[in-house]
């Protein structure tokens, strides 16, 4: 009886160990993790130097973790243990509420925000003396999850005030009231284009633009399954969503050019849905300089938007009011060389950044 018990324990233990050990040996090395959006560690270089310095063992540990069998499944188990068994409120800097996942950023980093504003002011002083300058702030999902969840969060209105007190512009357009939690995707940080028409209208109105639109002006297109950036980071089995994009004749006739890609581009490209970041469908995702020309425009107004990734899905909803919109992303282009790509001659200018980017403003160039 006892021997049987001992044998069962021994067999269970060594079977599990042996299964994963042999599995690891037989498994092919993966180069990239699509769910985590990062390159995986390959087998490290082994020589006297790397062994003596300890570099080999460090990288080998990482290699084992990255290449372990059923890695994504194990990550899912861990997230489930944290959230469903131990009832953690957040994990891996993410937290969940009613299937909405958000990054956990409870602290406002005044230093980083002030640095971001200093870069904005630098651009205003250097290039934009003849322009009407507007600015707006996109609240991240936390703002609404905080109200919803009564969890800890910094004061977003304090952030608004910090920006207002320091930026060289008096034209603030608030879009906080045009958004709610369901304006955002559940598994992604970004907003859903079909839910931000009011945001586009508020911004256009704030910049003295008379043209407004509603959902009936557009055809709604659907791409699925859409798994946002937080989906892979969390590793849990959550229902996929649909990525929506709005089209009409005016949008489809627009011509997009990029400083980084040759030739004319489209506002939306379904092929980019299969990229690591499916949000690249809108205006090719991360681009330093983009120009969107509207050949059907009834005016010659131009707009320059200094932006982050949220603006990719917003710009198509604003293009009908302009003959040209230029998008500049100061995370990917240094502010000293902007004039090589854009001629500044009195266009309207909108600085539109999300709170997440402002709170991590050190990435501004």
């Amino acid at each position: 009886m006892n021997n049987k018990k001992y044998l069962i324990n021994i067999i269970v233990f060594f079977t599990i160990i042996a299964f994963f050990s042999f599995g690891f040996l037989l498994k092919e090395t993966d180069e990239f993790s699509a769910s985590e959006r990062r390159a995986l560690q390959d087998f490290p270089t082994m020589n006297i130097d790397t062994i003596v310095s300890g570099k080999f063992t460090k990288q080998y540990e990482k290699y084992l973790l990255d290449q372990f069998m059923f890695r994504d499944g194990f990550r899912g188990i861990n997230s489930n243990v944290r959230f469903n068994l131990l009832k953690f409120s957040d994990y891996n800097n993410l937290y969940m509420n009613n299937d909405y996942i958000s990054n956990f950023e409870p602290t406002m980093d005044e230093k980083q925000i002030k640095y971001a504003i200093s870069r904005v002011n630098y651009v205003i002083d250097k290039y934009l003396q003849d322009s009407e300058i507007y600015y707006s702030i996109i609240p991240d999902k936390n703002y609404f999850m905080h109200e919803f969840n009564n969890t800890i969060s910094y004061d977003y209105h304090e952030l608004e005030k910090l920006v207002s007190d320091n930026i060289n512009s008096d034209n603030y357009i608030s879009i906080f009231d045009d958004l709610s939690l369901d304006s955002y995707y559940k598994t992604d940080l970004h907003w859903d284009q079909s839910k931000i028409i009011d945001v586009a209208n508020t911004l256009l109105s704030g910049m003295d633009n008379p043209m407004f639109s509603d959902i009936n002006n557009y055809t709604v297109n659907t791409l699925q399954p859409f798994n946002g950036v937080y989906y892979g980071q969390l590793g849990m089995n959550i229902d996929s969503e649909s990525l929506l994009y709005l089209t009409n004749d005016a949008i489809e006739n627009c011509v997009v050019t990029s400083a980084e890609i040759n030739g004319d581009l489209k506002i939306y490209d379904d092929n980019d849905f299969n990229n690591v970041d499916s949000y690249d469908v809108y205006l090719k995702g991360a681009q330093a300089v983009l120009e969107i020309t509207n050949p059907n425009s009834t005016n010659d107004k131009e707009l320059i938007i200094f932006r982050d990734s949220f603006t990719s899905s917003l710009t198509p909803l604003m293009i009908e009011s302009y003959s040209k919109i230029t998008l500049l992303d100061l995370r990917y282009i240094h502010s000293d060389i902007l004039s090589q790509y854009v001629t500044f001659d009195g266009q309207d200018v909108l600085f539109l950044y999300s709170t997440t980017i402002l709170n991590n403003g050190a990435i501004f160039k």
Partner: protein
Amino acid sequence: MLFSSISFLYVFLPIVCFIYFIVPKKLRNLTLLIASLFFYIYGEPVYTLLLVFSSLSDFIHAKFIYKYADTKKSKYLLISSLIINLGMLGFFKYIDFIIISINNIFNLNVEVLNIPLPIGISFFTFQTMSYSIDVYMKRVKPQRSLVNMGTFVCLFPQLIAGPIVRYTDIEKELDNRSVRLDMISNGIKRFAIGLGKKVMIANLMGEFCAMFRLVEGKSVVFYWLYAIAFSLQIFFDFAGYSDMAIGLGSIFGFKFPENFNYPFIASSITDFWRRWHMTLSSWFKDYVYIPLGGNRVSKVKWYRNIFIVWFLTGLWHGAALNFIIWGLFFGLILVLEKLFILNLLQKVKPLFRHLYVILIVLISFVIFNASTMTQLMNDLRSMFMFNNLPFITVETIYYFKSYIVILLVALILSTPIVPIITNKIKNSKYQNITLLIEPIFIALVLIVTTASLIDGSFNPFLYFRF
């Protein structure tokens, strides 16, 4: 290499077990020695020579101590062994602390050496010292085989974080031990318990402590939660490691001494130290306290002996002032207990005795974990409401709610409730249920801890720095 790492669980351990169980009995110690040296080289390629030197030095010293027993030569050889061991420990562990202290006292600017601390040096030097002392005291005969001696010192299950295994503990097993199903099975169970304690409790408590230092919105309650979390972290970290070490020892046929016995249920600090890091306490008792005269001296000398032992205990834990204060703090409490507190405690209800112990232990671990004296003072002031902090904040409530389940689990598992229940089951008509529960428990621990490790969770071993 950490026991709680993929490299150990799924590469090192299966290879070593496979080779160990198929080689002839006479080659088993050699197998363990080679595996242990590889285990150490993996984490400390350069300092492996130090480990080999330490083993060799005490092997030779002990041989001649025995040969020249009862002569002055024997005494000199023991002194030589102690100087070498303490010299190594002093140089690698304390030299920078000494330089910084001298600089501060004499306002000098001597450059520190920034020597990395060899992993486990505090453990293996204490083991080799006790071996030479025991040979000198004729408690044991010297080991004749260099392989066996090397196996004793380098044995990977206990090499880097204890328990402090003395030669007398495993002398017979080094020469002759057999593979037994019950020992392997119990070893596996014990290893799984330790792995679970370390990865699923200590690491999560560690995350709480790391988060505590970073977030805003501190409060008095938050500081007390931190004190509780760190006390639980260090207990489950070290007790978990000890369980894994004892379990691995058992798999390979060794019976290592116990290191923890539910210290948080102690009824006094005297009792607490009979339950916490028992192999260190008994080492200091046998090799320092008793040789100093123990309690068979005048009261003044008795108290002096207690303070010496606790000064050294504090210093053993780290080359920093907070560790010395921590040791002396316990020395003071133990003296006060002998003077009057123990008498007082006998007159109060058990609940108050436990509350007293928990209060002292929480304060002690806040001292223990302070990285600077400023932080130490700030932490203690905040706990006792001298820092004008709010009593409670939104952040405190948020993190309390977030960690409440694991805190409760940790508190329950720090008491003997679970073993009491399982023993009752084993002695009841439902004993067959353990046939099912044990393998399920082992499998679950392996899967859940592997998941946690793969997700790259927080995984330091606190006692590696000692």
